[in-house]
């Protein structure tokens, strides 16, 4: 046969057709109206060998510039170059995890179920909240689901949204909100902090603030909590799980719901996906939780076991009244994160957070020593900061690629017309060395001259 993974021999196909009393494979499609059937087949090349396709992939891959020794990564903006050891790749690529589906048969799915249970525990701890689900698509999807939960829980669809939140997540939220008709009110940034004064006291469903925010600044979660209390809203914090190695957790700062991008927890940069939406909330909201949740139980012989639970929230049971439409999620990434967090341990996570903050501080100081380079925000940050350059940020990025540095990400989308537009967002992780940062600073200095 021509399909590379179809096992059937011609003889077997003939035998099976005979068993069915059919004379050709075409007969199987008799129910398809002739008028709409495809004549002449698809206009695609025919099948190719694995070796040919691999060759082509290699060729295409060479047209990319991965980060690494020849392109040192100072880009962040939601996707970070943290250390991921071989052991994480090795375990997360075990085919039992990779080629399973949703654990519908718990008796033969204890592996994934237990790994997700452990993941939920770790995410709950990172967020400082009681409950975490088994993953959502990405940070943006987690934000969207969080807002939905808040709106459903409060009955108010007014959403007070800090512009410190990742602009792409805000755009996803806006795109989606058009459906159910959530009313998004954007709160501007001042010096890197959300300005709550524009929010007013009207009842609201959600207050959404990022900590640290897109510009890397440690925004005012306490102020946000006050606003949420005033307006009857749930407080949603967009957080960075790595920051929890150094900073107070969103839960301890008053968040009701914490959403985040789990990529920094062992997931490769991957050109943006698959990543991992982190979602946690307080126990009171558990019945509104979106997505899958694994719980503990016993088997018929009293053995500790795991199973997906509170299933009555989910789309396959509750259908149009489900808490969310999510079905396939990002389980493998959740398993990956559990492995990475197990590798890190308490101290390792601290080292990542502190190492990143040190690199960011050193980089910021080094870059600010360059003439005409200025800090774009005053608020203290974590591992990322925005700089005002004497040239277009995009141009600086292009020039530095030639020098072997991915200099950062230009701030534009979502900040049009603000003083942040056109700044360069620079991130540093624990993987950045003094030598790399010094080299980067020297190259930037040349590039903007």
């Amino acid at each position, binding site marked *: 046969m021509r399909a590379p993974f179809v096992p059937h021999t011609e003889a077997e196909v003939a035998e099976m057709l005979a068993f069915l009393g059919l004379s050709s494979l075409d007969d199987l499609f008799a129910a398809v109206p002739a008028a709409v059937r495809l004549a002449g*087949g698809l206009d695609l090349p025919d099948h190719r060998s694995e070796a040919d396709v691999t060759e082509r992939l290699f060729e295409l891959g060479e047209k990319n510039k991965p980060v690494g020794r020849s392109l040192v990564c100072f880009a962040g903006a939601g996707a970070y170059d943290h250390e991921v050891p071989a052991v994480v790749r090795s375990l997360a690529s075990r085919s039992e995890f990779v080629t399973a589906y949703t654990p519908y048969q718990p008796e033969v799915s204890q592996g994934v179920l237990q790994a997700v249970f452990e993941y939920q525990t770790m995410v709950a701890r990172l967020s400082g909240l009681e409950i975490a689900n088994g993953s959502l698509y990405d940070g943006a999807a987690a934000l969207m689901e969080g807002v939905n939960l808040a709106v459903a829980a409060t009955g108010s669809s007014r959403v007070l949204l800090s512009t410190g939140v990742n602009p792409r997540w805000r755009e996803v939220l806006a795109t989606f909100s058009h459906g159910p008709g959530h009313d998004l009110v954007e709160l501007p940034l001042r010096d890197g902090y959300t300005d709550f004064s524009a929010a007013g006291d009207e009842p609201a469903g959600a207050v959404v603030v990022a900590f640290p925010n897109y510009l890397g600044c440690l925004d005012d979660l306490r102020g946000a909590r006050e606003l949420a209390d005033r307006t009857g809203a749930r407080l949603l914090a967009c957080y960075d799980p790595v920051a929890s190695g150094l900073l107070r957790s969103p839960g301890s700062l008053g968040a009701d719901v914490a959403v985040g991008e789990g990529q920094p927890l062992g997931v490769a940069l991957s050109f943006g996906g698959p990543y991992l939406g982190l979602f946690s909330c307080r126990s009171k909201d558990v019945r509104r939780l979106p997505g899958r949740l694994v719980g503990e139980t016993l088997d018929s012989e009293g053995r500790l076991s795991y199973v997906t639970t509170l299933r009555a929230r989910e789309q396959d049971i509750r259908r149009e009244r489900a808490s969310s439409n999510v079905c396939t999620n990002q389980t493998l990434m959740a398993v990956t994160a559990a492995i990475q967090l197990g590798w890190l341990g308490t101290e390792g996570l601290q080292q990542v957070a502190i190492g990143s903050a040190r690199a960011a501080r050193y980089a910021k100081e080094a870059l600010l020593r360059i003439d005409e380079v200025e800090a774009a925000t005053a608020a203290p940050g974590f591992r990322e900061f925005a700089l005002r350059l004497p040239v277009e940020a995009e141009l600086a990025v292009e020039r530095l690629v030639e020098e072997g540095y991915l200099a950062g990400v230009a701030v534009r989308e979502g900040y049009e017309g603000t003083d942040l537009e056109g700044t360069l967002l620079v991130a540093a992780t624990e993987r950045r060395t003094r030598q790399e940062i010094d080299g980067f600073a020297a190259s930037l200095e040349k590039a903007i001259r």
Partner: protein
Amino acid sequence: MSSERVSLVPAAGGRALSAPLMGHEPEPTLFDLSMTGRRSASFRTSDLPEWGPEELVPPELLAESPVALPEVSERDLVGHFTRLSHRQYSVDLGAYPLGSCTMKYNPKVCDEAAAARHFAAVHPAAPPSCTQGWLEVLVELEEMLCEITGMAAATLQPAAGAAGELTGLLLMRRYHEAAGEERHRVIIPDSAHGTNPASVTLGGYEVTTVGTNERGGVDLEALRAVLDTDVAGIMLTNPNTLGLFEEEIVEIAAAVHQVGGLLYYDGANLNAILGVVRPGDMGFDIVHLNLHKTFATPHGGGGPGAGPVAVSERLAELLPGPRPVRLADGTFSWERPSRSIGRLHSWHGNALVLLRAWTYLRLHGADGLREVAEIAVLNANWLKERLRGSYDIAYDRTVMHECVVSAKSLADETGLRALDVAKRLLELGFHAPTVYFPLIVKEALMIEPTETESPQTLAALGQALELIAREARQEGDASSARAAPRTTPVRRVDEARAARHLVATYDQRR
């Protein structure tokens, strides 16, 4: 065996009793294996100043105590997750005929593609000069998906089928709004997958359900009765969740289009019709595809997947953006459609999943894809016939890629229910089919063998399913199946207990 006594031993990372190779004890959690002060992690030597926490962030924001994570050696980490993997069924271990999920074999070459540094280590915000290879892959994938579906343009952003559905509904809404119309209802058949109605709600629409006729298709009369200009569109899976092709699809399309509604195609079942018939040619306006089903990107224990949405010409300018585009000079870049609804993903979609699908498509080509559909359908029909007499056949027609049979008579005669059949099948070496779905078939067993299972495997599966029915009917041994599974690491789990006493984290134990 004195496993009781032995479980007194403190949790030990090097003890393999939870691996089914050795025994049947529960695996301790990673928290149980933790020992304060143990560690695996190490980092690059950075030579940076060793500033303390207070020199880095405002003291009032510093965590009061560190987040407690498991502290284990790399060796114990490996032991734990390797043992867990042995407690997990997967396609790589055996057949997984889970209906509606298309659990086909996931080619290993795609794993290598997705692991290659030149794809996996690319930053999503890197400028196009650094990502020409990626952009070319995405553009080519979009082109192939459009050809396969008969559509004009696509977005690769949605991360799974349900995200695709939501995207489609938002496109539908924007389309009608642009035409100055406000419509409130979306029609779905009663056989629809749960994500469809849930997505309709998220999209801000109301669900109108339409019934199924005696041939398993949409009841055209009932459909006509609910169609009016308040209807934004209809969501259909074709073949539907009964595994049946909608014979009256042309009439359905005409009727919906006549009231100005759009047709949404839930592509979860596209595997059945690859190269045979295209959603676009059937009259659909919006199509989502489950790359993790039809195009063999692995399901990852529940994800990640990818749910690209392809649309007809009139909707192309509404697609989410930025979209990867091929420029006149042969290079590649990003572009936002002029009237884009916005964005549905933090970045560009589940890129490495998309790369796997690109690889799969290149391997198959036009001839291979057509054969995938043919053999998937052949397998399902063979199995349906094999089960005749043992189980009820829900709708006795030629099925497409899956067949829905029912344990209704069996249950009436012997008390053995679909769930029991499923559990007994585990003991016989197969993953169970989907049970109790679609909801409109009582005691449903929804079996999707996929084209990658051999005739020998089908025969074995058929024999196993028949055996279960025969045991109960002829040998009066329904108790055997009701006690199943007995060979698995755990026996039937108490689902009700899990919900009643919710323990969803280690910290909620006791």
